[in-house]
Every structure is written in structure tokens, then in C-alpha cells.
């Protein structure tokens, strides 16, 4: 499988033997069609979107992994993704669906503190 390197280039030759994509195109089409005002999609467009999605996953995983600041350096955690979304302009569109997580107990504690303050 080809991979993006830091320069943003994509190595195509490695994947030449794989004429197919590793994501189901029918599912990709379903997602595309759920967008408003989309009537029909031609074969090229579907293939390109599916392939682009693969590249996107690779890119997102790589960027997040490299920026890994979690406790375990060798693991890609949710927080790495959230950080990557915040720091990179390309991933800005993901910030809404990648809110930073906090532990429930921390949230409850901050709620308590707020009610205490207002007493």
C-alpha cells in the first residue's frame, strides 16, 4: 500500500498491482448520495472518491501518529486525532466531529465547582 511521506507526495508505483480499492465502492456511493442535491454519480467520480478516501485515511493516520503526544508513544489515540485536526488547516473540517474528550468525572467535578462558585 502506498504511503504519504512528509513531503506530501504519494507513491503510486507500489499499488499498481492492486487494480481495486480496499474500500467498498457501493458503501462510498451510499454516503455520497446522502448529500443533499446529489442526483447521480459517474463511475470515474466514484472510483476517485473511494481512492481519495483511502489516501485520506493514510494521511490522517500518519499525521496523527507522528504528532502523538499521548502517554504511549507507539499508539495512535483519539487525542492524537483531535490534536491533528486542530493544528492542521487541511483537517479543519473535522474539528466539529472531533471534539476533545474529557473524562466524565472531570466534567462532573467542574460542574460541582461551578455550582459552588455561584453559592
Amino acid at each position, binding site marked *: 500500500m502506498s504511503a504519504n511521506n512528509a513531503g506530501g507526495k504519494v507513491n503510486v508505483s507500489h499499488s499498481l498491482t492492486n*487494480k481495486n480499492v480496499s474500500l467498498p465502492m457501493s458503501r462510498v456511493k451510499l454516503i455520497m448520495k446522502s448529500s443533499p442535491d446529489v442526483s447521480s454519480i*459517474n463511475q470515474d467520480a*466514484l*472510483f476517485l472518491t473511494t481512492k481519495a478516501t483511502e*489516501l485520506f485515511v*493514510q494521511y490522517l493516520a500518519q499525521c496523527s501518529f507522528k504528532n502523538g503526544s499521548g502517554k504511549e508513544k*507507539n499508539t495512535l489515540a483519539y487525542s492524537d486525532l483531535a490534536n491533528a485536526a486542530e493544528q492542521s488547516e487541511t483537517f479543519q473540517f473535522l474539528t466539529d466531529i472531533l471534539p476533545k474528550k*474529557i473524562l466524565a468525572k472531570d466534567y462532573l467535578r467542574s460542574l460541582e465547582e461551578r455550582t459552588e462558585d455561584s453559592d
Partner: protein
Amino acid sequence: MDGDSSTTDASQLGIAGEYMQSSHFVLQSQDEDGEEGMNDHEDGNGSKDNLREQDIYLPIANVARIMKNAVPPSGKIAKDAKECVQECVSEFISFITSEASERCHQEKRKTINGEDILFAMSTLGFDMYVEPLKLYLQKFREAMKGEKGITAVPVSESIGEELADDSFANQLPAGLITTDGQTQNVMVYTTSYQQIPGVQQIQFS
């Protein structure tokens, strides 16, 4: 589920289970693949109407595999990271699609073609993908042609009509599309795969 015959099986659509999100925090239930059910909805009418676009995901196994190949071999991926990327992917697809769709409408066309997608990628900050994607597309088309051993006239850039899903699975119409757009059903036989100069041949293992 609801006995609604017009909906497809939700578990095959990769619909996630309970998921709570507020502006400050996210709580996530431990969802296993295969246990997913439909999101709550009261009425069983219609099919697509009950599924919000963000509820349809690509299979997590495929997503996880691509991620695994993208990090160093010894690297690990947390489960919630996989699920998260699954959602990001749907978001990405919708993002590209709506941009491409807009351009399509602007040019008064109804079918989104390859050019629209490439244009959208370029506009949205993924222009480093455009050239590689064009190459991939070329290989894909050649692979589709070569599979059947049939010499076909190269089709024009945008076919302009939507093909059914199963047409991707190697059934090539044995026809020629002439320059005036008419399709003729002509059987073309060849005994060997045509060597097209300047094009790298694909080795199938």
C-alpha cells in the same frame, strides 16, 4: 427491525449505536462491529429519510487496515481512534461530494463526474492528491478493460451516466461508444492483450 421493507439492513450499513455528543465532551459506548442497530426513530416510513448522512460509515475493518498500513509496523491504534477515523471518513466523503456537487450544478449538469471530484479535492486543500488520483484512475480503467481480454475503444473522460453497482465487478459491456455518443453492440474479439505503447502494464499476481 421495524418490518419496513423499504430500508436495507441497518447492520450492513455500518450504523453506529448510541453516541452522545455535546459541545464540551463526548461519551461513547463500547460498540462492537456487528452489534450496531438503527438509530432511534419512531416512524418506519421511507428509507434514506431516516438515516442522517453522518450515520453511514465505511466498514471499520477496512478503515483499520488502511490505518495499520500507514503507521510503522510496531505501532498500535486505539479502538476509539479507529471508530473516530471511520466517522472522519464519512465526513470527508460528504465534504468532497458537496463541493463537487456544487460545481456540477453551477455548470448545469446533473451527474457528478471525475473532473468535479478532482476540482473539489483541489479546492479543499487536497491538491496533492490530484495527480496521483489521475494515475490511479488510468490504471483502474485499463485494469477493467484488460480483465476481459477485449479490446475496447477508450471511452471518453466522462461517461455521463450512472452505472449500477455490479457493473464495477468486471462485467464489461461489449460495445463501442462512437464519437457521436451512440452505443453500438459490436463484439470485439482479440486473442491477446493489446500492448499499448507508453503505458505501464500491470502485473497480476
